[in-house]
């Protein structure tokens, strides 16, 4: 039997890249086909029927036709547009960060069910949520789990002994914690406070009740964030670009650029 000429898929739009005059290559994360890149023709024309359905961070059902090199999206229908997320710059930027992480970590053609489910749930919560920062951290930890990069947080990766409640060390290269005695055996490390390690373990256990009660001091939240960011950059061998804008929004929220002055140009 010849392969059918079209197939249906459900997905979350991760990004779009302009192609030629009016087309766009859209990257979707689908449960069945993992990351899927397909051409949406004519989406940059105002009367396109596809356009509004294929913006990044849209949960969409698509009908795709097999193409010569890339497949072609022939129909698209929004399942969920996450409007509250789209209308708030901070939450939108958080959403784009999630999309970039997924886009960088996933490959085309491999089944993507767990990551798809995770992204869908996280975007849904982000559209409602107030505690975006913790949501991002949970997402990072769970994503690492699904992709086989679960960091070892219970015992020392070198001597295998349980970690003492003192300052320990995280080794991105070793994929976990090292005790003070082993810190120089496991490549480059960064110190981790007892509190930060506790938070990381809670996140890894997905202990929702305790997490819901958790109130992180700014410095502690930053420590956890930077540790995960460094680990992720190590695995990807690349920085996650959208963190730059997240950092900037946070900085400007703390100290708004003064009236009429340029927005804090740094370095």
């Amino acid at each position: 039997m010849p392969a059918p000429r079209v197939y249906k898929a459900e997905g979350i739009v991760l990004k779009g890249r302009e192609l030629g005059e009016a087309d766009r290559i859209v990257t979707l994360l689908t449960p069945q086909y993992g990351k899927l890149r397909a051409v949406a023709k004519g989406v940059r024309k105002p009367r396109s029927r596809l356009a509004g359905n294929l913006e990044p961070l849209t949960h969409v059902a698509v009908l795709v036709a097999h193409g010569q090199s890339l497949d072609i999206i022939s129909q698209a229908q929004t399942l969920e547009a996450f409007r509250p997320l789209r209308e708030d710059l901070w939450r939108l930027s958080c959403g784009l960060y999630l999309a970039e992480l997924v886009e960088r970590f996933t490959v085309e053609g491999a089944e993507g069910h767990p990551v798809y489910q995770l992204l869908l749930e996280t975007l849904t919560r982000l559209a409602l949520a107030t505690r975006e920062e913790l949501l991002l951290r949970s997402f990072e930890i769970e994503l690492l789990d699904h992709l086989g990069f679960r960091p070892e947080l219970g015992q020392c990766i070198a001597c295998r002994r349980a970690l003492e409640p003192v300052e320990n060390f995280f080794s991105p290269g070793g994929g976990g914690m090292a005790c003070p005695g082993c810190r120089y055996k496991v490549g480059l490390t960064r110190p981790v406070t007892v509190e930060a390690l506790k938070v990381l373990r809670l996140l890894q256990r997905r202990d929702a009740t305790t997490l819901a009660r958790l109130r992180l001091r700014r410095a502690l939240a930053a420590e956890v964030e930077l540790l995960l960011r460094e680990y992720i950059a190590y695995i990807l061998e690349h920085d996650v670009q959208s963190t730059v804008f997240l950092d900037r929004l946070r900085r400007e929220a703390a100290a708004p650029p003064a009236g009429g002055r340029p927005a804090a140009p740094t370095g």
Partner: protein
Amino acid sequence: MAADYVPAPEPVARLIEAFNRLPGIGPKTAARLTYHILRAPAEEARALTEAVLAVKERLRYCSLCQNITEHDPCRFCQDPQRDSSAICVVEEPLDVLALERTRGFKGLYHVLHGVIDPMDGIGPDELKIRELLARLRDGRVKEVVLATNPNLEGEATAMYLHKLLAPLGVKVTRLARGLPAGGDVEYADEVTLARALEGRREM
């Protein structure tokens, strides 16, 4: 690149390769253009050369609105007939032409030369935002119209600018979003339709 293997005299190969670098032009089209020029009269080739050079040598950015122009300030910024209390902020110079065709806007423009795109590492510093703030400093501008594209990056840029401009006491407006002329309600996506509904007008 395919042009490397063209068995043609060096000047021909060089022109093919130059055309091939242009957007939307593959090796076949590049070769066709090259042979067209080869057969065309010398004046045509000279006119093309001069036109290309003029774009690079005679054009610059307007020091006020950042649009491309031959004279600085550009003809919009110099025109006393235009309303200097309103500035319309657009992504690209081509957007200015599109808005001018409507004949509906009499104010001045400001070209950002891009949009905020966090995933590609394009932030506010890469756009002409500092130059926009400088134009608002003397308080003569009363309204800023945000006319970035109604897509995710355009909306993010508009929201960012709104956040930045609101404390300055200037009125910030956004182009309306709704159904395209000649469109069809049935085929509109949910976000467009919801916004068209929110922005409905009494007749």
